[in-house]
């Protein structure tokens, strides 16, 4: 269990490292994606339960006495919903960022962010 959190934090740190030190816009976008994935892993492992079942009620399990047992056996579905939403958002961000990177390359002939700096001061 705790391994999940360690890996999540590692992913976030890796993403941050990419953002701060890489000198390529596409690599920075990748770093952003890695960082968000770390957060997703963190969220998912928070809702996970050892030996839990998927949070979907199977057919024929909706008698009254079983419902309570289902609630205590299933994993927490809310983080999964959150992560799905966040993945969709992340797709939008990556697509828009990459298309902007294409245009930056079109105008500047480079993807190095330290050379894309005509707007300053």
């Amino acid at each position, binding site marked *: 269990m705790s391994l999940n959190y360690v890996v999540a934090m590692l992913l976030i740190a890796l993403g941050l490292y990419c953002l701060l030190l890489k000198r390529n816009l596409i690599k920075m976008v990748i770093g952003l994606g890695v960082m968000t994935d770390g957060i997703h892993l963190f969220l998912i492992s928070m809702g996970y339960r050892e030996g839990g079942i998927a949070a979907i009620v*199977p*057919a024929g399990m909706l008698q009254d006495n079983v419902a309570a047992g289902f609630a205590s056996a299933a994993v927490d579905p809310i983080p999964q919903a959150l992560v799905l939403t966040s993945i969709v958002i992340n*797709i939008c961000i990556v*697509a828009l960022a990459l298309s902007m990177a*294409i245009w930056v390359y079109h105008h500047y002939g480079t993807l190095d962010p330290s050379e894309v700096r005509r707007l300053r001061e």
Partner: protein
Amino acid sequence: MMAGMTTIVRTISRLLFPFMVLFGVYIILHGHLTPGGGFQGGVIIAASFVMLWLAYSLEQSPIEFKLFRTEVLEAIGGLTLATVGLVGLVMGMGKFFGHVLPLGILGSVFSGGDLPLLNIGVGIEVAASIILVFYAMLRKVGWDEK
């Protein structure tokens, strides 16, 4: 443009293509019963198209791409979502996304109230928009307007 890949890859991806689309549709339609749903199914459908483009290149792809149709489909997907929500608002006594259709029997395909409709709307929207994104990046739509 890209040259495309070898014959083996092309043949296999062409054979695989309908099954991938079918699988995507299955995921969308069973979204309220099994893990998955509109978004996942839509991504699978979009991935099947992208696979064809990668294998064949955009020009030689056996499925002809129509930009206009895809744009309209995307708008229709979004409108489906909004319409289901608004119908719930109007018919369901002021509940946005309130259920209008009967709930049905647990475990059958026609159940879950408005959920399958929502899944279909999301599926169309996601598939169309991801295909559009890939197309725009491959063809650099808007490049010449400068």
